[in-house]
């Protein structure tokens, strides 16, 4: 075989083509076609059928509950994740390393197991649950339980995005702000926040996507009561079990649409950041 010495290692044209073809085929088979199928299935019976399927009383309720859960989860985890990232990157204390490892527990544990743990702890016969039941408080098999497990499952996203970034950026800018007399709030608002803004948005987007789509943990603690504790992913499963294929795909297409929207927001966030970094001096705040 002839040896073409001017090619870089691994830069043979045939190899390039094979790799590209493999990647495109896999992406199509695993990602694009299934996504497309959801929408074709949803639209298969026509637009009106889709609207009436989504307009179903129980489906509407599931949408409402899912958005409600996300609305509670995202801000809570935003505050929690930011505070946690701040704590472990800005302070040295015993148990810090352990805490950083603990943040990953929700990722490491299967969501179903997480749901079972919550059931064990807060269920009617659980340690805390039985005590709460004496005061007539029921957390499991109602929306507070769903919110609790969703928070558990999604709590690492924001912190995980922020910790490496804040570690890399160091504390010097914040120390400079302190020597210049900035108060704690001003320091956070004017110095820390602008530096972590995009990572924060990215973390929120991921948290939201997971909060909307979570199935395993929620299915354990929700009790699947139609029109009461059924979230959108659970509802899809339920419709499918009922052989209501059109209804299942209609609801699934909503989840897919949310996913695509999430990706779009993430893309915009990344693009904005890149644009910010690449701005030329002439474009900046002309006075």
């Amino acid at each position, binding site marked *: 075989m002839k040896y073409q010495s001017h090619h870089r290692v691994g830069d043979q044209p045939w190899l390039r083509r094979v790799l590209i073809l493999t990647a495109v085929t896999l992406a199509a088979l695993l990602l694009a076609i299934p996504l497309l199928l959801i929408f074709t299935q949803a639209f298969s019976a026509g637009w009106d059928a889709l609207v009436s399927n989504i307009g179903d009383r129980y489906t509407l309720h599931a949408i409402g509950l899912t958005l409600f859960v996300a609305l509670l989860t995202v801000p809570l985890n935003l505050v929690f994740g930011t505070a946690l990232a701040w704590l472990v990157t800005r302070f040295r204390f015993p148990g810090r390393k352990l805490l950083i490892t603990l943040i990953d527990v929700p990722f490491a544990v299967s969501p179903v197991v997480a749901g079972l743990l919550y059931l064990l702890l807060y269920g009617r016969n659980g340690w805390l649950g039985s005590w709460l039941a004496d005061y007539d408080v029921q957390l499991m098999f109602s929306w507070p339980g769903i919110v609790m497990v969703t928070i558990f499952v999604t709590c690492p996203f924001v912190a995980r995005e922020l910790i490496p970034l804040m570690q890399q950026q160091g504390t010097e*800018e914040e120390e400079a702000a302190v*020597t*210049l*007399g900035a*108060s704690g709030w001003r320091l956070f608002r004017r110095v820390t926040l602008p530096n972590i803004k995009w990572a924060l948005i990215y973390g929120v987007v991921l948290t939201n996507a997971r909060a909307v789509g979570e199935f395993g943990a929620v299915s354990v603690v929700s009790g699947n009561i139609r029109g009461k504790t059924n979230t959108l992913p659970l509802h899809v499963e339920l419709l499918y079990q009922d052989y209501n294929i059109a209804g299942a795909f209609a609801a699934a297409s909503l989840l897919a649409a949310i996913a695509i929207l999430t990706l779009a927001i993430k893309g915009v966030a990344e693009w904005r950041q890149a644009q910010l970094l690449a701005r030329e001096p002439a474009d*900046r705040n002309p006075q």
Partner: protein
Amino acid sequence: MSIKIEHLNKTFGSFRALRDISLDIPDGKLTALLGPSGSGKTTLLRIIAGLENASDGRILFGERDISRLPVKERNVGFVFQHYALFRHMTVAQNIAFGPESLPKAQRPPKAEIRKTVTRLLEMIQLPELANRYPAQLSGGQKQRVALARALATRPDILLLDEPFGALDARVRKDLRRWLRGLHDEFHFTSVFVTHDQEEALELSDQVVVMSQGQVEQVDSPTRLYASPASRFVFDFLGHVNIISGSVTDGWLQQGNARVSLPGVSVSGDAQLYLRPHEVRLSVEPGDRACLPFTIEAINLIGAEVRVELKPDGWACDDIWEVGISHGEFSRWQPARGDRCFVTPDIGHLFRNGDNRPETVAWT
């Protein structure tokens, strides 16, 4: 404002970074903290600023004990080694950050802040860069912006951590002069950290030499250079030639080398420290000393000719260096491998186990 440090200690876990530091930093003067890497300079500076807490000890600004005061009430300006400019703010916004951070009651009106920024930009000679971002500045420009930002709050005390450390030699020299000029004009009290002895001696009114978390010596540059107080300070301030031997009857002897020690009566083992410019070279031994050498290398570049010498018939750990004038060099025309003798004018004698030198002068 003067700074008084009393019995300051700092430990990180079991590591003692600062040991019993007591220090007076005079009002309106430029003081250098000089020492090798890891000697605790940055730690001391950060404790003065309040960015780090001392384990025990006191710090006074003027008469006031500020040991427990938070950073923002100390009114110090701090210039960080890597500038620490706010990366998402323009140069002008960086400089305005300090005045804008003042509590409402003390905050000057917007127009006045803008005027301060303009004035400072002119002072650092960068008025055209007001709207640039830090990423678009050179190292020297960043350093000047960092300085302007620190000065915008009108601090009583300016603290600088290796202000010129990361810059090339040329820019460094310019900035050094510029800072000196600035200081002479405004008379704030400044403390700057450096591990460059030349920088410390050139720029400061007072030098604090540190080693392993302790203060070795505090003196003016001239006095520090003329009479270093310990072996460490000697070693740290440029090259020094050392001969060790035993002292008997007023002579130090080792192998076939010997030096008279006028005024020294005790005997025992000792080391004699001789600076390159405090000795002379000759072809014949004088009556003060007989220190035979062979010439190892000759370096002609510079204000004087540096001759490197290897002991002949005796031993020392480090080679000797002697400076002679270019005139003397051309008269004498020494060459590599020639034999020659060193005659001392001033020396510093350390007895074994003693860290304080005794000055010996031959006249």
